[in-house]
């Protein structure tokens, strides 16, 4: 396609015929009508209305008439477009055409001094990432170079935004025409834009996906509050703009289906239906994407094939990346089949047309494709009255092609924008292909000219097998031919011109003398007129979509069954203790019966002779299954892990293989007050929202010690830097929470009459959370190590009349276990971790035993995607260190964490009526020698040693199939990139997005 770009010569018929009346003229007025009649073309008025042998009249950049048999008025330049197709030019809603690039600076975070305040000058929002005051029109200026790339792909108009900030402000809708900025601008404020990328903002907060969501939610609240007041309490021009632009189409830039769902959820909360720019992976979760009910802007950037020749290197390419390579071209066809309204963007896509046509080859209908590029985008920004079809009165934006625009071999000839022609490849290039009798110095040579018009090549046939190479150049009306006659030691160098029956001219012979030559056409070359694109290519056969879209995902999710586990050693965690030779019946997702010789009907009977059955392992402290873990505000209580749960983390499957059935995804420990937790069950394969435990209590992470006082960041300026400051952060936060509550109570006590006259207090997401904690509606799990600060937090809580729910890690809990027992706080600790940083120097593996015996509900946690796979063994260590009984030790990873998470009425023991979250172990569950044989959640077998072998076989087969397919691509000259892929990043307590701290992460 590159050469077409080079060919793209902006040839205008005239100077711009409709220059503005209000502008000064330097010279003599030269306005021309630019009246043109396109004739004899196949005109696609829109996707369904096609006019054969049609005529289209355009004048002053607008369409005047379209149809068959239209008389051409006098004065209109008639252009015979016989054999061509004419379509509306495409519209791209995702572009930054003509907008200066924002300066992108590095991210703040661990290590450097934090930027707490906004440094934007002027009366704008307190957070740099809120740039709602920005209007793309203020900086827009047409850019011919950028425009050329869009034009050659068929685009005639774009919605141009500045891609910077969470709230990006408004975009301008412009054509790619050559007129002035005034002429090309169709709507200077066409839409309002949002994203999950804070862009050039250097402000520390927000630093994560969940912070972006929290800031957007807070800003929606702030805007509402600000809007309700007159006069305003202060000037915030960002909020002014936010409110002023809320009736424009709202477009959200998401990068894939997962972030799209998150954006849609934010919109739902505030009554906004975003148009969502997707990522091209929507097919992976079609059902959820459909439920959003959002119109979408979809890229067709498909991954290139991976280098898989070397099987050692090929191991680095993950199954999910290979499958995406195969399935990405089918994405649009899935969207169409599911009735989703979408448009297509060419942003950052150097293979746009090729990939668009590939999408059609993979099942997207041509009608849907054309709509997605014309009418749909026009409608989404309410510009369909002016653009998007070839109807009277619309902007004369159209493309001229050699055939069906979605066929692979079709050439894009011209792209007219506002009535001005842009030539992409010359429609009128003469075809000189044929056989010629070349006569030079009385000798005749059989010259054959072949190739496409504009790129001819030539050769001379000596006999049936021997050919002489010929250099042939045809430029306009002049010709140049060089060749070395067979057996000769010289080259004829001939110049000449186009003649009626071929070429004629003069040239130089061996002696350097001027001679005459002719080449007379003797025959036309028989071209293969059958257009390849018109053959109905079969849609390629594709692999399965698996859930989740990664190794160990399944085409069909496992179903809930009635399961009878026979003859097991059952560790009940109840007063019954450990029962021998006992059966357990699981029905409707609950534990239905426990007893000997049960003979209930079951879908599945598991013979557990010699095996052990326990309640599922529960991890009070995990960071699996989330896309972000830490935000960075000192008080980050407004951020919610629940906003960023992901279903695609293979760590979840591996944890199931270790008998884990539920866990708390905790925020990290970067701040004294961290974000809100998400409690999930390991429903591997279900969508993110489905993994959450419905009805679970709300939790929040607090943290103490080295991490929150930024001990390893010598440049940190963020308050607090000492344990003294940490206490004050808490006292301050809870004091503010109480004040906030008072303010709202006073407001709520007003009569409706008084309320109407009073501005409601500002809804503050931080204080909302603090009030929840104060009122026992949200519970604290506090990362903690050293006894002094553990004691301190309990005293702060008591001062405000509530209790800390859990101290997590709590490695010096043993030193204050009596005080903890008195306060009533639980403990969730490591088994034997210690000495990886200064504050854990006095951590001892006897901690759990000491706290347990002191009357503290004690759990053993992981904070690690490795340790979570063996929490049962970590409990085994508590038997070793401190001599806790095996039954009590097992409770530390089952019932006790359930208690700490207020789920003990539903989970944590083998008791009739509790959730059927059960593990069958091959041996004593605390032993290093045991394996989880089956892990059952809600009566659904999510992990099974036998099924695991099937997964492995499937992965091997799929990989082999896809590698073979990729090799095919390489051979057939498809694109090819050397790239390995895809190791997931594990999160720990201290990880800020994108930063890997090597030591002491916990």
């Amino acid at each position: 396609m590159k050469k077409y770009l080079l060919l793209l010569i902006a040839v205008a018929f005239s100077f711009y015929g409709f220059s503005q009346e209000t502008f000064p003229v330097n010279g003599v007025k030269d306005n021309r009508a630019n009246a043109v009649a396109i004739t004899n073309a196949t005109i696609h008025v829109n996707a369904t209305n096609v006019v054969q042998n049609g005529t289209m009249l355009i004048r002053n950049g607008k369409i005047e008439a379209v149809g068959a048999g239209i008389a051409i008025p006098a004065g209109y330049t008639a252009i015979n477009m016989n054999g061509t197709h004419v379509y509306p030019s495409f519209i791209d809603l995702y572009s930054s055409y003509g907008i200066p690039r924002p300066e992108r600076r590095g991210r703040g975070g661990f290590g450097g001094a934090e930027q707490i305040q906004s440094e934007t000058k002027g009366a704008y929002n307190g957070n740099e990432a809120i740039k709602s005051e920005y209007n793309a029109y203020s900086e827009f200026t047409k850019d011919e170079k950028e425009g050329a790339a869009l034009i050659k792909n068929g685009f005639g108009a774009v919605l141009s935004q500045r891609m910077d900030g969470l709230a990006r402000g408004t975009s301008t809708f412009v054509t790619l025409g050559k007129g002035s900025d005034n002429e090309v601008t169709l709507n200077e404020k066409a839409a309002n834009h949002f994203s999950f990328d804070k862009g050039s903002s250097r402000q520390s907060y927000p630093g994560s996906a969940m912070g972006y969501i929290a800031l957007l939610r807070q800003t929606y609240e702030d805007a509402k509050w600000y809007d309700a007041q007159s006069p305003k309490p202060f000037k915030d021009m960002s909020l002014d703009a936010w409110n002023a632009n809320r009736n424009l189409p709202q477009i959200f830039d998401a990068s894939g289906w997962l972030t799209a769902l998150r954006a849609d959820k934010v919109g739902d909360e505030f009554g906004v239906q975003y148009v969502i720019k997707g990522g091209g992976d929507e097919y992976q979760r079609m059902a959820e994407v459909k439920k959003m009910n959002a119109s979408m802007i979809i890229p067709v950037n498909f991954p290139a094939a991976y280098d898989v020749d070397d099987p050692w290197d090929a191991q680095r390419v993950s199954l999910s990346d290979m499958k995406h390579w195969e399935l990405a071209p089918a994405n649009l066809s899935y969207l169409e089949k599911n009735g989703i309204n979408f448009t297509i963007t060419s942003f950052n896509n150097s293979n746009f047309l090729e990939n668009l046509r590939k999408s059609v080859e993979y099942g997207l209908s041509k009608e849907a494709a054309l709509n997605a590029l014309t009418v749909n985008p026009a409608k989404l920004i309410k510009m369909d009255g002016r653009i998007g079809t070839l109807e009277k009165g619309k902007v004369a934006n159209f493309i001229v092609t050699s055939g069906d625009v979605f066929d692979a071999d079709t050439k894009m000839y011209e792209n007219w924008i506002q009535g001005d022609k842009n030539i992409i490849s010359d429609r009128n290039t003469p075809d000189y292909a044929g056989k010629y009798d070349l006569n030079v110095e009385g000798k005749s040579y059989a010259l054959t000219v072949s190739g496409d018009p504009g790129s001819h090549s030539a050769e001379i046939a000596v006999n049936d097998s021997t050919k002489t190479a010929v250099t042939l150049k045809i430029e306009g009306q002049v010709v140049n031919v060089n060749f070395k006659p067979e057996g000769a030691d010289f080259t004829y160098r001939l110049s000449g011109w186009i003649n009626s029956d071929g070429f004629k001219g003069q040239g130089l012979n061996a002696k350097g003398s001027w001679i005459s030559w002719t080449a007379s056409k003797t025959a036309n070359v028989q071209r293969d007129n059958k257009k390849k694109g018109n053959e109905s290519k079969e849609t390629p056969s594709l692999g399965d979509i698996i859930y989740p879209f990664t190794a160990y995902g399944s085409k069909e999710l496992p179903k809930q069954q009635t399961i009878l586990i026979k003859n097991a050693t059952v560790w009940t965690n109840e007063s019954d203790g450990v029962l021998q030779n006992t059966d357990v019946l699981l029905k409707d997702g609950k534990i239905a019966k426990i007893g000997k010789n049960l003979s209930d009907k079951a879908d599945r009977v598991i013979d557990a002779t010699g095996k052990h059955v326990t309640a599922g392992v529960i991890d009070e402290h995990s960071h699996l299954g989330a896309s972000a873990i830490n935000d960075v505000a000192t008080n980050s209580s407004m951020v919610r892990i629940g906003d960023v749960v992901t279903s695609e983390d293979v760590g979840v499957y591996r944890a199931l293989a270790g008998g884990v059935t539920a866990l708390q995804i905790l925020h990290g420990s970067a701040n004294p007050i961290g974000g809100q937790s998400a409690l999930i069950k390991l429903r591997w394969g279900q969508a993110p929202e489905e993994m959450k435990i419905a009805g679970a209590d709300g939790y929040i992470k607090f943290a103490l010690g080295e991490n929150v006082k930024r001990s390893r960041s010598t440049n940190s300026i963020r308050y607090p830097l000492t344990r003294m400051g940490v206490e004050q952060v808490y006292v301050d936060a809870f004091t503010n929470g109480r004040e906030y509550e008072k303010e709202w109570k006073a407001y709520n006590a007003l009569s409706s009459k008084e309320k109407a006259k009073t501005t409601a207090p500002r809804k503050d997401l931080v204080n909302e959370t603090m009030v929840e904690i104060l009122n026992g509606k949200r519970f604290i799990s506090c990362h903690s190590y050293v006894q002094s600060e553990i004691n301190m937090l309990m005293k702060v809580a008591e001062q405000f009349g509530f209790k800390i729910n859990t101290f997590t890690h709590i490695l010096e809990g043993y030193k204050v276990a009596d005080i903890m027992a008195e306060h009533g706080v639980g403990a969730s600790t490591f088994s034997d971790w210690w000495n990886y940083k200064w504050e854990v120097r006095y951590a001892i593996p006897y901690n759990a035993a000491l706290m347990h015996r002191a009357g503290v509900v004690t759990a053993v946690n992981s904070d690690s995607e490795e340790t979570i796979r063996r929490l049962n063994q970590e409990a085994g260590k508590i038997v070793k260190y401190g001599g806790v009984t095996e039954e009590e030790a097992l409770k530390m990873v089952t019932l006790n964490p359930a208690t700490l998470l207020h789920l003990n009425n539903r989970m944590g023991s083998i008791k009739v009526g509790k959730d059927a979250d059960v593990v069958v172990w091959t041996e004593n569950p605390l032993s290093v020698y045991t394996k989880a044989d089956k892990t059952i959640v809600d009566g659904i077998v999510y992990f099974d040693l036998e099924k695991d072998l099937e997964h492995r076989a499937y992965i091997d087969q799929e990989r082999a199939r896809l590698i073979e397919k990729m090799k095919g691509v390489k051979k057939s000259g498809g694109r090819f990139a050397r790239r390995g892929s895809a190791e997931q990043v594990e999160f720990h307590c201290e990880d800020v997005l994108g930063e890997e701290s090597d030591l002491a992460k916990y």
Partner: protein
Amino acid sequence: MRLKYIQLLVMNLLLVGSMIAQVPIPVKDQETPIALKGGTIHTGTGQVIENGVIAFDKGKITYVGAAAGFNLSGYTNVDVAGQHVYPGFILPNTAVGLEEVSSVGAMMDVNETGDYNQNVRAQIAYNTDSEFIPTFRYNGVLIAEATPGSGIISGNSSVMKMEGWNWEDATFKADVAMHINWPGKNRRSFDFNTFSFEYGPNPTYEKTILELTDIFQDAVSYGKLASKEKNLKMEAMQSLFNGDKLMVIHAEQAKSVVEAVKFGQEMGVKRMAVASGTELLLIADFLKENNIPVIVPSAHDTPPRTDDDYDLPYKLASLLSAKGVSVSLSNSGMLGFGRNLPFYAGTAVAHGMTKEDALKLITMNPAKMLGISDRLGSLENGKDATFFVSKGDALDMRSNDLSHAFIDGRDVTLDGRQQYLFKKYADKYGQSK
């Protein structure tokens, strides 16, 4: 409570002057011959002797075998009936003694600056007062290879005992191995757009190999030159060529391992071992053919790639052993986890090995690899009396429970500060029996 009364006494004496428990006091050399009788003896060579006797004098084993026929007279008899006897576990490739609190730079002596540190010696930085040491031996790890890290050539490791007044006492064998961090042929880089790692060729690979080639060729030449200026780095390398010193190649990628081993052979390095992970499975035949023992990282690890079997790290040692490769287990990640070495072997049992074969992964195999199997690695006559007694199966965390540990026949103190703190607070809360 498991505290032996003598140890308790020692501990109490120790605590008189200080609120903070110190590292336990090293005990005196063996004064009288001792015989432990009635235990199940796991010799480390695959043999299990039920109701056996192990006798030792002056720090050396004098008898290992059935109780029947052994004359116990002249020995201090200790009844260990129902208990298990194991050779002292050996932890190779660890920073113990060099690292204390990893997040505090002042407490780290692991990583010397510079790329080529052939001359650096771990032995002299080994801190016998490290808080880690008592916790290691509490679980049966009695010998460790203190190993420097960083750079391309990190320096020389030494085999150290988990007891001693100073590094001289604690040294079992100095400068046993030189450690080389072979560069990856491919390099991993982080991509913010996909939030994942991507692989591409390592642009500096060739340059590093050229540097290493120069260094090794110069070292060979140095050894042969009649007259020369003394060069500490070249001196340190000479023992690689006569087989005295092992060269341990650290490399993650299979391709790098192959190239490094070939390089060593070409340069005339006599003994080599490889420290690597799951990619070793790709070249098991190569390792076996070339007789290269391997050190694998912690079995308690996550599989490196999404598509891997969930139990790949668990079964790595087992799979390699089945291919005929000599495997030693080591610890990766936090140094404190070094005490879990026995359980890494237990994990290998859960994933395909017999207990006695898994035992070799932490006794005989590392002893052979490090060139110390003449004295350590198994319970045999004439070998060092460096072994321990556990009340239960030492490879399982449920039952690993030492009653004695002997280093050179010295009945070392098992309890350390962690046990002291346990007792202190159990007493405070009235939990002690």
